[in-house]
């Protein structure tokens, strides 16, 4: 029915030889293929179709987006870029510098994105003053998750300083419970590292070290203290952690084998899927220290030919940042909306806490990009830091050596 109407409309348009209004087309490259994520994309797909667009899905799974990036590289080099691509952080600007991103400022200005997005998140969506990407969600990375029963049975409150955390962990270890559930994969080591770094260096120190790559901060005594705390964290992890996936670590917290896990709010999805209730079965809190580390997924628009594809980009950008999609998508994904004016009534208490902290930290300048999840630095630099973090965590390297290695690795990655 619908297609025949379109066919009729386009036939009339053709016979009148008038410039037809192009039907929005979008080919979307993404790597959201697992259960909850695929459902979230389907929401967008449906909304796009309801607004008269034709969506061509191009999901490329594997390697946490590595496979999708390889596909993207091939498409761009052959001069046939997809309409929209799931990209995030400085990778957006990196592709912009290759001269392949489109300008979506007209949509962004018409929709007033600048007023509804937190300034530092909006900054990631801009390429030299023009809008080039649309944010989908905000994951908070610096969460600490805990098993409520285990904490209660051992008389422990949620720690608010790293000293309290260490005291609680020692107590738990003495009681025969693994204090920290952790998986020995480089990105998980880096996730714990940046949470510790935010607590010990503070928001300013974190920004200097992992956004500005300030050599003095990277070599400072504060950084030595961060590695000292990482060495302690290593002692709180069970012996069998190597190569463990993050969701298995979450399961350890769920069934009481372990007390805490430091992980982004995608871990919440695991708890909820297992039928656990926030505040009752499991607790969420920000890690000790002030600040908010975000991991924002976004779609970048690539240069394409044809009015139908350009119309598709405009429609897609508008829908992505639209209130309805931001709400439905983030309810599915476990994150919070990137725009601050979405009603959060249907969200759980952890999401409320996340949204409140995001607004506060946005005001006082401690809303910071996560380095471990590719928001703060380009691949070469963040990879170099992760190499050092994971080498230190998995050996008996001293903190002083680690700091020197860190500075050398960062310098060498430029």
């Amino acid at each position, binding site marked *: 029915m619908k297609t025949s109407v379109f066919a009729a409309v386009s036939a009339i348009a053709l016979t009148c030889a008038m410039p037809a209004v192009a039907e929005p087309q979008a080919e979307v490259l993404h790597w959201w293929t697992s259960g909850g994520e695929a459902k979230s994309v389907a929401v967008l797909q449906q909304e796009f179709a309801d607004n008269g667009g034709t969506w061509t899905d191009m999901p490329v799974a594997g*390697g946490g987006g*590595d496979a999708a*990036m*390889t596909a993207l*590289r091939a498409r*761009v*080099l052959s001069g046939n870029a997809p309409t929209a691509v799931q990209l995030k952080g400085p*990778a957006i600007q*990196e*592709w912009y510098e*290759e001269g392949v991103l489109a300008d979506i400022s007209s949509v962004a200005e018409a929709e007033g994105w600048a007023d509804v997005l937190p300034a530092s998140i909006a900054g990631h969506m801009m390429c030299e003053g023009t809008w080039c990407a649309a944010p989908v969600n905000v994951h908070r990375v610096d969460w600490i998750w805990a098993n409520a029963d285990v904490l209660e049975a051992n008389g422990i409150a949620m720690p608010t300083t790293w000293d309290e955390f260490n005291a609680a962990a020692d107590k738990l270890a003495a009681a025969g419970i693994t204090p920290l559930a952790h998986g*020995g*994969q*480089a990105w998980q*080591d880096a996730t714990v590292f940046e949470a510790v770094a935010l607590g010990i260096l503070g928001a300013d120190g974190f920004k200097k070290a992992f956004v500005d790559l300030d050599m003095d901060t990277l070599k400072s005594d504060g950084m030595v203290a961060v590695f000292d705390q990482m060495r302690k964290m290593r002692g709180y992890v069970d*012996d*069998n*952690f*190597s*190569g463990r996936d993050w969701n298995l670590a979450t399961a350890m917290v769920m069934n009481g084998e372990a007390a805490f896990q430091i992980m982004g709010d995608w871990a919440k999805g695991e708890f909820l899927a297992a039928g656990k209730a926030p505040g009752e079965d499991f607790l969420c809190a920000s890690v000790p220290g002030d600040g908010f580390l975000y991991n924002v997924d976004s779609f970048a628009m690539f240069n394409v030919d044809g009015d139908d594809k350009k119309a598709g980009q405009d429609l897609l950008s508008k829908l992505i940042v639209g209130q309805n999609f931001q709400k439905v998508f983030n309810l599915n994904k476990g994150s919070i909306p990137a725009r601050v004016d979405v009603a959060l009534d249907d969200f759980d208490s952890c999401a409320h806490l996340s949204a409140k902290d995001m607004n506060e930290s946005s005001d006082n300048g401690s809303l910071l990009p996560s380095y471990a999840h590719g928001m703060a630095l*380009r*691949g*070469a630099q963040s*990879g170099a830091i992760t*190499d050092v973090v*994971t*080498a*230190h*965590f*998995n*050996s008996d390297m001293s903190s002083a050596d680690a700091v020197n*290695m860190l500075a*050398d*690795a960062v310098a*060498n*990655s430029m």
Partner: protein
Amino acid sequence: MTEWLERHIPKMVLAPSFIAILVFVYGFIAWTAWVSLTRSRLLPKYEVEGLIQYERLFASPRFDTAMMNLFIFGTLFIIISMVLGLLIAILLDQKIRTEGVLRTIYLYPMALSMIVTGTAWKWIMNPGLGIEKMVRDWGFENFSFDWVIDPDMAIYAVVIAGVWQASGFVMALFLAGLRSVDGEIIKAAQVDGIPNWRIYSAIIIPSMAPIFLSAFIVLAHLAIKSFDLVIALTGGGPGYATDLPATYMYAMAFSRGDIGQAASSAMVMMAVVFAIIVPYLYSELRTKHD
């Protein structure tokens, strides 16, 4: 006409594959060499900047570890596979009754992909699931076998899995070699009352020299291009303790958007392969001229 065809058909038939190899092997080697001299990041760039990528490569502790691991893994993998393969071949060569069955059992690991081998051994060697847990459950509480999570020992765990996979294949090579030795010589030696081990060490094994060389070349290139085994078994970890040059190159090219660095590590890998293959080719070609 037929004479012309006879003269030119071989050339015409070979031409497509010759051109394909020229472009897709040597052409791409040249392309990689060029890119390794540039500052390419996300996409390849073509302005030559000198040896900067090689300087970065050799300043990187991770690449140091990768080269050291290649050396340890390569040496142990080749030596142990050859020794084990030869030993099994000699034992199977004793005209035993179930030889067919045993030979198949030893050869089967080669039929598996390295990913399967790596995943299976990851579980077997995992302290919480595999051998360590089993022996401890038997009552030996102090037994410990945690190589796969120990950064100093993890590369040896990779060697175990690699040897398990390859030694059966080496056995098959050697068994064929043992069978090809002229039976008359062996019988003559037996008539002279020479003990069995002496027959093997002084007659059979020396006459198998070409087989040793083939086995060495096959194992050496398996070792250098090893990638899937490490990815499946340890993922390069703990930390980057089991990184090999191939996994380093993959990380640089596909995860970090550092194509120049990936190209330079690929060139170093190729240099290692050449260091092994060229002497072999040289000796092969020379013997043919004689």
